[in-house]
C-alpha cells in the first residue's frame, strides 16, 4: 500500500540549498521553563560548517536545553539561524531535517517497535517516497555498522547498539548538523571507542554536549563551557584545558593521562 500523505503535507527539500558561512548562529538566546527556571541566559554562539564543538558544564548548566532549541522544539527569546535559515514556525520542517538531534537516552529516541521503523521515521515524515526511504535506512544503518539489526526490536538491544541506532535515526534524514546529548554516557570502553570512531568518520558539523573530557580532548578542537545558563568560555580546547582554575570553578576536570 502506498504511503498516503494528507493534503497539507509538503515534502521537504532534500538538501537545503541555503549556504552561508555559518552552520549555526545563535544570538542572545534566553529561555525560561514554564516553572520560571531561567535555563538559558543571553547565549551567543557561532559555529562554522564542519566544526566539531564540545559543550561542557556541570549538571543543570543548560546544555540539553540549548540543544532542544537548535531545531525549535523549545523556543526562547533571541535569534537562532541554522545554515542561514531562522528557526521559526514556518521553517521548522526544513530545520528539523537539517539538525539531527540525538537525545541522551536512546530509549527516548527509539520509540518505534523495530529498528527499521525507527530509522525510517525521519525520512518518512519528511515526505520521501518508499524507495528513497528504504535506501536511506540501508545507508544510515551501514554507516553505523548495524545493517543486520533492521528487523530487531529496539528494546532488546545493548546500550552501545541503541546509541548507534539512535545516531542512524538522524543520519537517515541527511542532516547538516548533528547535535548529540551525552553520546558516550553509559557506554563501556569498547562501545565508547566505537562511538568515537563513528563520530569521527561523520562529515557533519557536530555539537556534542558531554561530561566526557577525554572525548572532548580527542574529538573537539573547540570547547564551550556553560554554567547556570550562561556561556562562561568559548575557545580552543587546548587553550581551555590550560585554565585549570576556570575548569574547576565550573565543576570540570582536565583529563590527565
Amino acid at each position, binding site marked *: *500500500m502506498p*504511503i498516503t*500523505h*494528507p493534503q497539507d*503535507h509538503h515534502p*521537504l527539500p532534500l538538501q537545503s540549498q541555503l549556504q552561508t558561512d555559518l552552520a549555526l548562529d545563535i544570538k542572545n538566546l534566553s529561555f525560561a521553563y514554564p516553572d520560571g527556571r531561567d535555563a538559558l541566559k543571553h547565549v551567543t554562539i557561532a559555529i562554522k560548517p564542519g566544526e566539531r564543538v564540545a559543550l561542557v558544564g556541570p549538571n543543570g548548566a543548560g546544555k540539553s536545553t540549548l540543544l*532542544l532549541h537548535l*531545531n525549535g*522544539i523549545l523556543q526562547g527569546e533571541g535569534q537562532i539561524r541554522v545554515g542561514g535559515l531562522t528557526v521559526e514556525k514556518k521553517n521548522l*520542517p526544513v530545520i*528539523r*531535517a537539517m*539538525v539531527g*538531534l540525538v*537525545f541522551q*537516552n536512546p*530509549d*527516548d*529516541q527509539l*520509540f*518505534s*517497535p*523495530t529498528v527499521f*521503523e525507527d530509522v*525510517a*521515521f*525521519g525520512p*518518512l*515524515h*519528511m515526505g520521501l517516497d*518508499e524507495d528513497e*526511504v*528504504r535506501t536511506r535506512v540501508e545507508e544510515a544503518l551501514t554507516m553505523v555498522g548495524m545493517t543486520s539489526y533492521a528487523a530487531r*526490536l*529496539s*528494546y*532488546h538491544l545493548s546500550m552501545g547498539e541503541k546509541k548507534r541506532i539512535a545516531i542512524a*535515526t*538522524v543520519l537517515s*534524514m541527511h542532516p547538516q548538523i548533528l547535535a548529540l546529548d551525552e553520546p558516550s554516557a553509559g557506554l563501556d570502553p569498547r562501545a565508547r571507542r566505537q562511538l568515537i570512531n563513528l563520530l569521527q568518520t561523520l562529515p557533519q558539523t557536530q555539537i556534542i554536549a558531554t561530561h566526557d573530557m577525554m572525548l572532548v580532548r580527542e574529538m573537539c578542537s573547540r570547547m564551550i563551557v556553560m554554567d547556570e545558563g550562561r556561556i562562561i568560555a568559548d575557545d580552543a580546547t587546548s587553550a581551555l584545558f590550560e585554565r585549570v582554575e576556570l575548569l574547576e570553578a565550573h565543576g570540570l576536570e582536565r583529563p590527565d593521562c
Partner: protein
Amino acid sequence: MPVQPFDRYQEGAGFLHRLDPRVKVVLTALGILSNVLIPDGAWSAFLLTFALILYLTHLAKLPWGFVLKRSLIILPFTLTAFSVIFITPGTTLTVFRLGPWSFSATHAGVIRFLSILARGLLSVQMAILLTATTSFADLLHAFRHLRLPRALVGTLAFTYRYLDVLGDEAVRLMRARQARSARLPGVSVRQGVRWRGKVTGAMVGQLFLRSLERGERVYYAMLARGYRGHIYTLNPHAMTADDWVFAWVGGLSLLAIQLLARLDLLLTP
C-alpha cells in the same frame, strides 16, 4: 529483569507465519464474530470451528495441544456466565438448596452456559493462533494499514515499546526501596498495612511522574524527526496469491459454519 507480557509470538516457519498479517487480523475478527453468531446448542458448528482451529494449528506447525492449553486461562472468566444455568427459563433438571434459597438448573440454561463456554474458548483460541504466528510489530502494521483508529494503534505501539522500559523502572524503584528498608537486629519494626500502602502509593506516583516525563521526551524526539501529528509507516507486506486464496477459503469456511449452525438447529426438534 525485563517483563515481556506481550510477546506471544512463536518463531516459526509455518504457512500461517508467512501470511499477510492483514489477512490474519481480518479473518480472526470474522472468526470471532462467527463464534458469537452461532446459536446456542449448535454443537456441530462449534465442533467444526474447533476442527478448523486444529487444522490451522497444524498449518502453523505448532504442537497440537498448543491453543487448547493456552485457551484454558479464560475458564475463570466464563464462570461469570454461570448464573445463566439458573435464570434461563426451561424444563427444570435439578434443584440446589442453599440454606433458605433454592436454585433450579434448567435444560436450556445448561445448553446456554455450555454454548457461552464454547464461544469463549474458540474465540480465545483464534486470538492465540493469531498472536502466536504474527509478531507484534506485524500486528501493528496490519492494524495501521487496515485503518484502525490512529490513536488506538499509536497507544498500542507505545505500550508495546515502553511496557518493558516501565517494568524495568518499577523494578529499580522496588530495589531502591528494599535497599533502604534496613532493620537493626533485635529491633522489631511494626510496618502496618497503612505504612505499606503509603510507600506503595508513593512508588506508583513516582512511576507515573517518570512516565509523564518520558512521554514528553519521546514527544520531543518525534518532533525532532519531523512528526507533525500523523505517524507514517511503510507497509512491509504485499498480498500474494496465497494470501488471497487463504482469505477466500477462510471467509467461505466461516460462512459454511454459519449455514451448518442454522441447519443443525432446524433439524433438531
